[in-house]
């Protein structure tokens, strides 16, 4: 196929999900000529997410029509340094996105702000528990950005999305009904919380009786009609129960398509090219500047796209892989713990309890929304005393019912036969009467959990796949054992006739086959020390000032929260630094 060179642009964005759309809005507003390259197809509410076709569980929820095609490119995975990694060929543990809007199309819309102490986690633990409290192999590190610095950007994203919720802390004053542990907010949520589902009402009451502080989940499913600051309109969520894994047919879930693209796609200084797969960032001979990117277009042509500024806006592990493929930054070496690109890959550790209620209490599980529910933050962050427990981190505990789609979301009591007449009787007796609650736990960074390039396997373009080396560690298993016990106590207080607990135990290994979380983080951590971070506190690559890296790849360790609120706030924070500082004097910002 032909090799072509396109005219240069001011800024090229690699990937066009949430961070690409945010950067596109901000950099075009600054007057730059901006080009977004998206490897997947163009997608929008109509026709791609239209009713009733989108309610097809088998096509979207199980076969994953909106997700990355793993036959073209995937990651390889192994548990430890001595193991041989094998490709992730069937969607299981995580569901990377594809196409315009990225995973911002098929997320649930559960929104969180980081706790102020999350961002200075090492200092917090050292101050309260002493330096020896931190395990030897745990690479616990600060983000280099404070909650106060990010607050206006959390606020901005919440306004863009029409976030529904209740403030727990307004300018330092604790508010009844919100999360009392959250950092101070300048403003109340743009919309009131979503209506409470049957299961959430039980959870709220049970948690309150146990002395905890439940509050409505902050939600990017609109609770009322809303017009955002860019003029995009959202309609109230109708609890259709087809949220995560699906696009929203109702213009209720905030996505790039429903909030930013109606404005951005009409700007004269913006261009989107879909089916354009970036294979590397091109560098000057001395490796100190990027000159643009090279991508493969839909016809298979290799296109060189010069640009003054390169912003990586792809999913977490694609960003890390592009840095590695382009020889940007020093590669992480787990043998010595030195190097930065690939460092501190992390994930999340989840627990769950499924409850089965009496026939007098139908839960109607199909009435669901991605982010409608009740949450407890008492056992996350340092909101409880870790001293006697001996672990770092925690979990948010939640009762969020996203739907009752029968193939994926049916759970039956322990002892139910897997098939046959017994299975059929059990699904008939339990489907309507089932509710689930979960713990979403943090995972820290460790010396031998990391990302690099696979020595064997390649993608369809002949480039090495990313290799993920990851397994559970004792600290995080202790966290999930403790927080899931708390979850179980809430479940019991909700009064089911039977329940089933799912919790990881010491010695358990990471199981790639089962869906857990698409909250993969790290690999290009941000920070203030170039020996432990790949990007500075403005998400700018150390030593390559015209490359910025968005996304959860910047997380030095993971939260017990959904990451999108933080990912979006960091994108706005970085965009502000580019607009106010970098464009006036292009160079290193830190």
């Amino acid at each position: 196929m032909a090799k072509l060179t396109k005219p240069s642009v001011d800024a090229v964005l690699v990937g066009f999900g949430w961070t690409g759309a945010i950067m596109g809005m901000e950099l075009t507003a600054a007057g730059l000529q901006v080009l977004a390259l998206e490897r997947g197809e163009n997608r929008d509410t109509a026709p791609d997410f239209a009713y009733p076709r989108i309610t097809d569980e088998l096509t979207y929820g199980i076969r994953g029509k909106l997700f990355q095609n793993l036959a073209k490119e995937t990651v390889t995975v192994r548990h430890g340094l001595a193991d041989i990694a094998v490709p992730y060929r069937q969607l299981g543990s995580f569901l990377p996105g594809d196409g315009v809007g990225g995973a911002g199309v098929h997320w649930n819309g559960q929104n969180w702000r980081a706790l102020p102490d999350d961002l200075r986690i090492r200092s917090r633990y050292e101050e309260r528990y002493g330096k020896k409290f931190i395990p030897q192999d745990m690479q616990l590190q600060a983000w280099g950005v404070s909650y106060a610095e990010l607050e206006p950007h959390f606020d901005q994203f919440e306004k863009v999305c029409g976030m529904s919720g209740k403030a727990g802390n307004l300018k330092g004053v604790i508010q009844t009904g919100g999360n009392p542990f959250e950092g101070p907010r300048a403003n109340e949520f743009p919309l009131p919380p979503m209506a409470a589902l049957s299961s959430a009402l039980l959870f709220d009451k049970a948690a309150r009786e146990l002395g905890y502080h439940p509050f409505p989940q902050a939600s990017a499913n609109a609770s009322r009609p809303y017009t955002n600051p860019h003029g995009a309109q959202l309609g109230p969520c109708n609890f259709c129960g087809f949220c995560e894994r699906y696009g929203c047919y109702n213009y209720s879930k905030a996505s790039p398509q429903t909030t930013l693209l109606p404005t951005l796609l009409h700007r004269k200084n913006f261009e989107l090219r879909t089916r354009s797969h970036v294979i590397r960032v091109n560098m000057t001979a001395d490796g100190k500047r990027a000159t643009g990117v090279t991508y493969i277009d839909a016809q298979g042509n290799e296109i060189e796209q010069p640009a003054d500024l390169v912003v990586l806006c792809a999913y977490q592990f694609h960003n890390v892989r592009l840095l590695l493929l382009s020889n940007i930054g020093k590669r992480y070496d787990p043998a010595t713990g030195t190097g930065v690109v690939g460092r501190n890959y992390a994930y999340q550790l989840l627990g769950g309890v499924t409850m089965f209620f009496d026939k007098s209490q139908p839960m109607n599980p199909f009435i669901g929304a991605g982010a409608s529910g009740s949450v407890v933050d008492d056992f996350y962050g340092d909101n409880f005393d870790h001293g006697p427990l001996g672990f770092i981190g925690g979990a948010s505990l939640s009762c969020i019912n996203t739907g009752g789609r029968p193939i994926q979301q049916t759970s039956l009591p322990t002892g139910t036969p897997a098939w046959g007449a017994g299975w059929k009787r059990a699904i008939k007796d339990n489907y309507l009467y089932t509710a689930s609650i979960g713990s979403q736990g943090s995972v820290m960074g460790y010396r031998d959990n990391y990302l690099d390039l696979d020595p064997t396997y390649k993608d369809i373009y002949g480039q090495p796949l990313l290799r993920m080396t990851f397994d559970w560690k004792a600290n995080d298993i202790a966290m999930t054992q403790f927080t899931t016990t708390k979850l179980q106590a809430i479940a019991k207080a909700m009064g089911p006739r039977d329940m089933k607990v799912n919790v990881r135990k010491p010695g358990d290994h990471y199981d790639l086959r089962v869906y857990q979380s698409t909250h993969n983080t790290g690999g290009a951590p941000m920070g203030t020390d170039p020996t432990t971070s790949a990007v500075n506190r403005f998400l700018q690559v150390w030593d390559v000032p015209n490359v910025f890296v968005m996304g959860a790849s910047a997380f030095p360790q993971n939260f017990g929260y959904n990451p999108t609120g933080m990912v979006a706030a960091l994108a706005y924070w970085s965009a502000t630094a580019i607009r106010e500082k970098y464009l006036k004097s292009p160079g290193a910002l830190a």
Partner: protein
Amino acid sequence: MYRAGIAATDAHCKTTFGGKVFATLDAAQQDAVLKGLESAEIKFDTISSKIFFTFLLQNTKEGYLSDPLHGGNKDAGSWKMIGFPGARADYADWVGRPNVRYPLPPATINGLQNQVSRNG
């Protein structure tokens, strides 16, 4: 997987049940064969009987519980049995009404199933 798995299952049945293939066995015999595949007590030369069974079970449940447009779940029978309203996907009026059963039968992507008599 299916070509090899079905052929091997029928070969096993013919040997064990006097020349009968799986489809012609009675229900108890069929259950016994399926249990043998699940536990890998029945072994195939070509593929893993256990992996074949895992695929078979997963795909059978998918067909049974998915929208009838995929060819299974005739007349949305499984949805009627468990109480899933299928493609209705619009429940704003039913939120916050604990202990009340949703009253309507399922809709499918291609419309309502057998709800209105053709004779009116």
